[in-house]
C-alpha cells in the first residue's frame, strides 16, 4: 500500500436505543485514500459526518462495515478489526488526533500534558519536556503557565495546548478536527506552519477546517463527505 490511510466502503449509522431506536445514517460506501505528504480537507455542511469520519479513522467511533487500513510501521492494519492493544499502539506511534476540546486531566501541568505522548513513544522525559516547552513557546503560551494545569486556561490557550500535545510527536498520520477554531490570527499562522512542516516530512493529514484561509493554505484537495450520504 502506497497510501498512509485507505478507507474503503465505510458505513456508519448511529442507533439511539434510548430514543425509541431512532436510526441516524451518516455515510455509506465511503472510500478515501491519503498519500504521504498530502493534506485532505473534509468539506461540507455541519452534520454531514466530517467529525464522524475523522473519529472513525482514529477508531474512536465504530462503523458498521467497511475497512480502514492504516500503515503502521512496515505493516498495514485494518483499524476496525484490530485488537484494542493494537489500536492503542497505532495511536501511540502512528496516528495523532487534535480534537476540538482538550480533555483536561486534573492537576497535571501543561508542560507534562504536552510531553506525555512523546514520553509514551519511549523518548526520555527531559528531552520530551524540552520539546514540549519549545512548542508551547512557539504557540505563545507564556512560560508562567507551563507549570499550571490547563483546567483554568482560556479556550484558545487550551486549544493550543491540545495542538502542542499532538504535534510534539512526529506522527506519520495526523487527524485534525478544527484545530484553529478558537485561535487568533498569529496563532492560526503558527498552526499553518506546523501543518506545512508535517507535510514536508511526509505525514498524511486529514482535517476539518472551517476557516477558509486556513483550509486554502494547507489543503491539497477537498473531500466532500456529503457525497456518500446514506439513505435514511
Amino acid at each position: 500500500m502506497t497510501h498512509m490511510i485507505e478507507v474503503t466502503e465505510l458505513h456508519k449509522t448511529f442507533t439511539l436505543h434510548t430514543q425509541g431506536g431512532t436510526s441516524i445514517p451518516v455515510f455509506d460506501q465511503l472510500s478515501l485514500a491519503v498519500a504521504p505528504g498530502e493534506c485532505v480537507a473534509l468539506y461540507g455542511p455541519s452534520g454531514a459526518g466530517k467529525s464522524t469520519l475523522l473519529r472513525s479513522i482514529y477508531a474512536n467511533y465504530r462503523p458498521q462495515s467497511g475497512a480502514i487500513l492504516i500503515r503502521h510501521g512496515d505493516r498495514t492494519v485494518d483499524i476496525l478489526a484490530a485488537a484494542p492493544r493494537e489500536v492503542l499502539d497505532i495511536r501511540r506511534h502512528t496516528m495523532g488526533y487534535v480534537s476540538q476540546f482538550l480533555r483536561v486531566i486534573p492537576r497535571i501541568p501543561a508542560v507534562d500534558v504536552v510531553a506525555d505522548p512523546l514520553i509514551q513513544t519511549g523518548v526520555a522525559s527531559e528531552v520530551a519536556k524540552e520539546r514540549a516547552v519549545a512548542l508551547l513557546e512557539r504557540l505563545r503560551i507564556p512560560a508562567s503557565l507551563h507549570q499550571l494545569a490547563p483546567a483554568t486556561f482560556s479556550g484558545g490557550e487550551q486549544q493550543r495546548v491540545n495542538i502542542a500535545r499532538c504535534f510534539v510527536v512526529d506522527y506519520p498520520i495526523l487527524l485534525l478536527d478544527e484545530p484553529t477554531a478558537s485561535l487568533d490570527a498569529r496563532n492560526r499562522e503558527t498552526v499553518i506552519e506546523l501543518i506545512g512542516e508535517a507535510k514536508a516530512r511526509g505525514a498524511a493529514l486529514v482535517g476539518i477546517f472551517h476557516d477558509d484561509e486556513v483550509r486554502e493554505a494547507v489543503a491539497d484537495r477537498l473531500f466532500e463527505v456529503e457525497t456518500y450520504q446514506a439513505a435514511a
Partner: protein
Amino acid sequence: MTTALMRVRNLDKRFDTIHACRNVSFELHQGEVLGVVGESGSGKTTLLRCLSGEMLPSAGTVEYDVRMRGLTDIAALSEPERRLLRRTDWGIVHQNPRDGLRMNISAGGNVGERLMAVGARHYGEIRGEAVDWLERVELDQDRIDDAPSTFSGGMQQRLQIARNLVSKPRLVFMDEPTGGLDVSVQARLLDLLRGLVRDLHIAAIVVTHDLAVVRLLADRLMVMRRGEVVESGLTDQVLDDPQHAYTQLLVSSVLQP
C-alpha cells in the same frame, strides 16, 4: 503477540437463586488497565472476587500467568498458593481502606508488612522503602509511625495503595478505588494511580460505577448488566460511541458539571 497475564473463559457464578456472573470471557495483558462498569448489582464486584481468588467460580476458568509456571487455573492452586499470589504478585485495593489496611499497626508497618511477605528482612531497608512509598503517594513521612486510624479517608486510601504497590505486583484489583472520597481528593488519587500504574507497567482491573474514573484510568472497558458483559472495547469507543442500549443509557445518564 505475548501471552496473556490473565485469561478468563466462560466464567459463571451462581448463588442459590442469583446468577451473578454469566459467561464472562476476556484476556488481560501486562500493563493493561481494564475497567468494569455497571450499576450496583450488575455482578462486577462478584466478578472481581472470582478473579482475585477470593471466591471460586461455579463454572469456567480464571487462568493467571504464575511465575515459573505460566498460565495456571487459579482454582487448581492450593489456598496457601493463592494467598501467596495475593500477598506478592497481586495487589487488592478495597473500596473501604479499613478492609485493606491493618488499622492498629503503623503506616510504615502496613507498607513494610507486604515487603516482608516477599522476603525483605533488613529493617533499615524496609523502613527506607516505606518512607519512599509514603512520599510517592504524597503522605507526609512524619506520619510513618502513626496508625492509619488517625488518617483521613483520602490518606488511608493512599496508604492502601502504597501497601499494595510496594511489592511491585504485576496485577492490581481495585474495587471503587475513589468511592466515598471528596471530589478534590478523588482527582488527586486518580492522578496518582494513573501515574503509578503507567510508570510501573502494572496491569489493573478497576471496578467502578464512575465513568469519569474509567475514562482517566482504563485502556479498555467492559460494561456489565445483570451478570453479563453487554459491551466491551477501548474505553473511548465504548463511552463515545456506545452500541448497546444499556451502555447508551449509562453514558447519557451522567451529569456534566
